[in-house]
């Protein structure tokens, strides 16, 4: 009934998951081989120096105390300090975050603007030329290694044709290749799911009713087919957020796009554990938030969802 209540309840539901992630990350990092204190101190440092650093980092305290420290600092938004940069992790993340967001939005836009129409057409006219193109596109999208595609695009557009830049993020032109690369990955799924849900929607009984009313085919397809197909499509876009983030990591690496993905990869090489940990938690949290937004969108599109949620809350 109420979208508002639905939002609140979803947020509350997400909390235990978030807690789980934090615990998981905590465990994972403690499990890591290697002594962070020694890493920071350097191989030549004396035992006392390493010991002092250990004290500083609180690594001597019992595990549960470490966890409490960890947790409370997280609540404050303090994700620790980067070993390599010496600056707070959160700052490093925030500096790069806008770039990843830019890349994500532009890529998703490309993917949706091309993918959904292709999917619709291939559902309505599966044996036409466009239909075959869409099948091909969706197959390519889900089988293509993006890093390879990125490199191929660089070879074509930057090296051979010399019309698009291949690295960095200075000008608006710089976003084109990375976004196209990432979009191809996303397009694969979008075309496939749009096609499948359009087919299902068009075969549903209410479409027969719509036709029996004498509505024009265009109205039937858009109003009764697409509108209903949007439900699984939005779902898939939500599920794709994972591929989006994962793909961003790879794409940013190929194109040296200064986003969080690139930061993560670099930090793994430098064994910058606080940074690695911080980024992963950050990623995961964003992911959860985005999923909540998708759920809310979902409830907006499908009126039935609102009803059941409300009833659950009333314990009917």
């Amino acid at each position, binding site marked *: 009934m109420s979208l508002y209540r639905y939002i609140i309840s979803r947020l509350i539901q997400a909390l235990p*998951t978030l807690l789980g992630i934090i615990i998981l990350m905590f465990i994972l990092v403690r499990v890591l081989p290697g002594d962070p204190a020694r890493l920071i101190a350097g191989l030549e440092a004396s035992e006392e120096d390493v010991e002092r650093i250990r004290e500083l980092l609180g690594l001597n305290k019992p595990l549960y105390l470490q966890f409490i420290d960890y947790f409370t600092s997280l609540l404050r938004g303090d994700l620790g300090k980067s070993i390599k940069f010496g600056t707070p992790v959160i700052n490093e993340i925030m500096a790069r975050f806008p770039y990843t967001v830019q890349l994500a939005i532009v890529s998703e836009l490309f993917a949706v603007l091309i993918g959904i129409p292709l999917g619709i057409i291939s559902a309505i006219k599966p044996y036409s030329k466009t239909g075959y193109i869409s099948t091909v596109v969706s197959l390519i999208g889900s089988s293509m290694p993006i890093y390879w595609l990125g490199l191929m695009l660089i070879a074509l557009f930057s*090296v051979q044709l010399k019309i698009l830049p291949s690295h960095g993020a200075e000008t608006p032109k710089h976003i084109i290749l990375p976004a196209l690369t990432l979009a191809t990955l996303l397009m694969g799924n979008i075309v496939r799911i749009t096609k499948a849900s359009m087919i299902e929607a068009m075969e549903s009984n209410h479409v027969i009713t719509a036709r029996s009313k004498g509505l024009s085919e265009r109205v039937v397809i858009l109003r009764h087919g697409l509108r209903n197909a949007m439900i699984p499509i939005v779902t898939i876009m939500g599920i794709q957020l994972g591929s989006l983030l994962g793909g961003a990591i790879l794409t940013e690496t190929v194109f040296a796009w200064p986003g969080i993905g690139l930061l993560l990869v670099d930090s793994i090489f430098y064994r910058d554990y606080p940074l690695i940990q911080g980024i992963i938690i950050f990623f995961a949290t964003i992911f959860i938030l985005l999923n909540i937004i998708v759920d809310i969108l979902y409830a907006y599109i499908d009126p039935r969802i609102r009803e059941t949620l409300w009833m659950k809350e009333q314990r009917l």
Partner: protein
Amino acid sequence: MDERTKVIIERLQEARKTQMLLMWARFKANIGALIGLILLSGIILMAILEPILPLEDPLAFNLGKSLEPPSLSCLFGRDEIGRDILSRVVNGAKYSLGIAFLSVVLGSSIGLVLGLISGYYGGWIDNIIQRVTDVLLSFPTLLLSIALVSVLGVGLTNIILSVGISTIPVYIRLTRSLVLQVKSEEYVTAAQVIGKSSPYIIIRHILPNVLSPVIVQSTYYMGLTILIAAGLGFLGLGVQPPTPEWGAMIGAGRTYIFSSPHVVTFPGLFIFITALSFNLIGDGLRDALDPRVRVLIKKVKI
């Protein structure tokens, strides 16, 4: 048994046979699936025959011939330290195929078992498993593999473990939702009423119905795991040099994209072909297993 029942049983048996034949016919008719099968067989053959093929040593380097472009004598060219890319690609096949296969087997078996337990027994065990799955699912698969690799370290076994484990949550979800559907069917209730033990019911009645979607999912996952494993290799987090893993070859060769694109083109091409073939086969399987009736005439003008 009277005439009518006999006729009905005969019809059912015929229907079963026809169903099997139909499924195979549908699969065969799907050109994509056939192409996928052919491609995949080609790659598998390549991996199997590799020891007896007349190839150069994939590890032998020759700095004098660094970055040699493809030619008739050296079909795929040479990489930055002069190694023959063709032989490296052929050699790399077994790694990618092996990783894909083993990680999917790992992930699907654990995921299947957990999903069956979670779905069938419900209650607190279901709750715990679902909560943990939620947490794992909140990481995109690649990210999860990266996280696992940063804990376990790099190397072949660790990749298989990391990629395999990162596929578990989806299997759990899939299996569980299927189990929930099947659980409410009448033959399950009938078996419970008779007093069959739970493990028996799970194995005998629920598992067979859960298998087909899981198999289709696994086929798709094999394509995906190849991409992820190669992705990890690309990032330097996978199989370590000098082992000729396709992803690692791309990662190492990417700095040479401007001068010698052939170094990354061929390994990537093979990753693409392999993943593609799995996807095609997956599509074919999914269509073949679909109980909905197929159409004889494709284009009819009214």
